[in-house]
């Protein structure tokens, strides 16, 4: 007999507008405010608001029901601006001790792979906002897109966390089961692994009529979970599964509504990630190559698989010191928003020929246009940096050089 651990990811990026060559040096409005507002309203209406109402109701009616969330800072900011109702519902959730919040990088960024200091800064920024809005100090960490390796675990431990989330991928597990708690190699961190088969049954396959599990009832699902031995079956997924990826007419909300009672019939309970953080791990997992929860490869190729993505990411992170040194608050804010993983995802050319899921989530016609807009923005930042260098200061250092020479 096992428990399940439910964790939902809530994230919205600041999408950039079709920033062109002609904007460089003239216009520092990088983000598509209209589009971002429109997407946020749409997803709030279809998913965030109705799904959170269901969860609030479940908490009232099921004394044993527990759930965890991680909400990116960029999503929180946009709720504050465009959908205060969503934020209030999340705050209402946080009043219950049965809802746990996790930490991540504030900007849902790829900083873990490029810049440890920036990563730590963004985590601390996220700690602050979670504390302020939800009154919690998380002990469990989830990195952007579950990107994980030993190195990241070490950094996360140094920030004071007890556990970290990762994909329970066969490629690293081998014969081992994702339903036990592991130790992250070289650390004291517990590693909580996503049971991707059962998670994806809900997140991806729920409405797939060609899938032999269709239609997925809560009773059927509970009967799959029941015989599984282990510490916990970890069901990790995007919150947008409810109402946005799986539309309301697929019955996904009913599924959510009835899942706790169906699990209870099989004596399956709920765990919080923080409870799993306290369990003694059975074994250690040694993971060098970054693992993630995306695509069949479960690596970082969805964000860093091609040359455009690599060049865009390395260019933006290289600008960090100069941007921070500029003291220009709005420039720093923009720069941080540009570290969000989604920007690189839009440049993904994997499977582009087949026009698959990547296309659905992208605001651009092609990955190439995403790259062009992003790099034009990068050039504007470089331009701003050049302009903002105080001329007096540079002539003064020149003067000093001359004097010392």
């Amino acid at each position, binding site marked *: 007999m096992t428990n399940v651990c439910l964790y939902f990811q809530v994230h919205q990026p600041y999408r950039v507008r079709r920033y062109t060559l002609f904007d460089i040096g003239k216009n520092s409005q990088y983000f598509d405010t209209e589009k971002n507002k429109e997407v946020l309203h749409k997803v709030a209406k279809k998913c965030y608001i109705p799904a959170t109402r269901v969860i609030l109701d479940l908490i009232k009616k099921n004394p044993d029901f527990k759930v965890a969330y991680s909400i990116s800072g960029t999503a929180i900011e946009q709720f504050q601006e465009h959908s205060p109702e969503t934020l209030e519902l999340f705050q209402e959730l946080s009043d219950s001790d049965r809802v746990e919040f996790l930490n991540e990088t504030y900007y849902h960024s790829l900083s873990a792979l490029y810049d440890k200091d920036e990563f730590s800064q963004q985590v601390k920024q996220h700690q602050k906002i979670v504390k302020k809005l939800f009154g919690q100090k998380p002990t469990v960490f989830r990195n952007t897109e579950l990107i994980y390796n030993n190195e990241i675990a070490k950094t996360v431990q140094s920030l004071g966390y007890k556990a970290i989330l990762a994909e329970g991928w066969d490629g690293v597990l081998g014969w081992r089961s994702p339903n036990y708690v592991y130790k992250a190699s070289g650390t004291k961190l517990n590693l909580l692994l996503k049971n991707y088969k059962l998670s994806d049954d809900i997140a991806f396959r729920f409405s797939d009529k060609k899938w032999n599990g269709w239609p997925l009832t809560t009773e059927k699902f509970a009967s799959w979970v029941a015989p599984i031995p282990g510490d916990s079956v970890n069901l990790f997924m995007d919150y947008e599964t409810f109402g946005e990826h799986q539309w309301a007419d697929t019955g996904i909300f009913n599924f959510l509504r009835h899942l706790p009672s169906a699990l209870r019939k099989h004596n399956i309970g709920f765990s919080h990630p923080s409870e799993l953080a306290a369990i003694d791990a059975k074994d250690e997992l040694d993971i060098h190559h970054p693992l993630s929860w995306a695509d069949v490869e479960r690596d970082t190729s969805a964000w860093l698989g091609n040359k455009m993505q690599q060049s865009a990411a390395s260019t933006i992170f290289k600008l960090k010191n100069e941007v921070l040194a500029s003291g220009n608050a709005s420039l720093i804010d923009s720069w941080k928003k540009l570290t969000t993983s989604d920007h690189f995802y839009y440049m993904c050319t994997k499977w*582009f*020929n087949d026009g698959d899921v990547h296309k659905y989530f992208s605001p651009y016609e092609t990955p190439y246009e995403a790259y062009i807009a992003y*790099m034009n923005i990068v050039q504007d930042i470089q331009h701003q940096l050049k302009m903002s260098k105080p001329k007096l200061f540079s002539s003064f250092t020149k003067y000093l050089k001359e004097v010392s020479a």
Partner: protein
Amino acid sequence: MSKIKVLMFGWEFPPFKSGGLGTACHDLTKGLAQEDVKVTFVMPHAPNGANAKFVKLIGTNALAKNVNIKTVDSPLTPYMNESTYEQHLSNGGKNNAIYGKNLILEVKRYTALAEHVARNEEHDIIHAHDWMTYQAAIKAKRASKKPLVVHLHATEFDRTGGHPDPRISHIEYEGLNAADVVITNSEFSKKNILTHYKIPANKIKVVHWGIDEENIPKGTYKAANENIVLFLGRVTIQKGPDYFIETAKKVLEYEPNTTFVIAGDGDMLPRIINRTAELGIANNVIFTGALRGDDVHKAFKTAKLYVMPSVSEPFGLVALESIKNGTPVLLSKTSGVSEVVQNALKADFWDIDSMTNKIVSVLRHSALREDLSTNAKQESAKFTLREPARKVKEIYETLRKH
């Protein structure tokens, strides 16, 4: 079932120019021969004509076995219009006395001769490529009562930027009307035909083109300036060279060290050269005239980007040649090829700002060039020469059954 025998009215076999109608006819015939379809290929060919570069057919076994070439003495080439025909005629002097005085008369004369040549050729299907061959094909159909396939590579509306010669569009209409099946190269082109001609939509079948990779050389070439942006095609209103030049002017404001190459010939060339001078960018624009053979591949391989700003491009085979040569492409949205190639930059031909934005990005970012090049090349593997031939054979088979 016995082999299908096709009486084909086409152009330039083998083709002496890259891209275009000659290549399309040749590639289709080659593909059909490999599919074991027998083709009798009737085409204009004058000893002193612009089409005189005709070489005796030496091909693979399938070609030699299945293709039979019949030539008709006529100086017609597929892209002639009234003025280019007359110009050609006056250049030839007395030798040309036997030909028609104007284009329409010459087409009429060709029709009579071609029909005569075709009369003794056994066939199950008649297949004609573009308007100059339609009347001959219609006559052949009347004589043999066999089904007619009319292949429309470009309409008179495409060629003239929307200002058709009514005599030509009338011939086009007759051909479309008489056809049992109309083959076109793209959904874009099908939509165009339906806008201009009243024919039933279900008669039109779309067959996207592919390309023969055999001829593409492996080597790399370097030009003195590495920042080359290429236009390759006929310098006519259809191909949008004027938009290319206006875009060049704008790109140069941002990337002054860029060379724009215009490879092609056509009635708009003098105007384009003038405009280049007017814009003060003559030092950054090179006119090569029409390129042949390996020079075409060299032009692609030395360029960082191939731009196809066509106003109306039923397919745009040249874009595939560029891709197979590893050169990224910027395609006008009003082209057939842009509906099948994903890994390309796309813009409206009139949107000079959008084209400038994209061209400058390509010049500035090697990552963009490399990803476009690699991915497009990979994608283009599916645009083979056999694929369209297979589809055309299927159309023949259905027609023969009826």
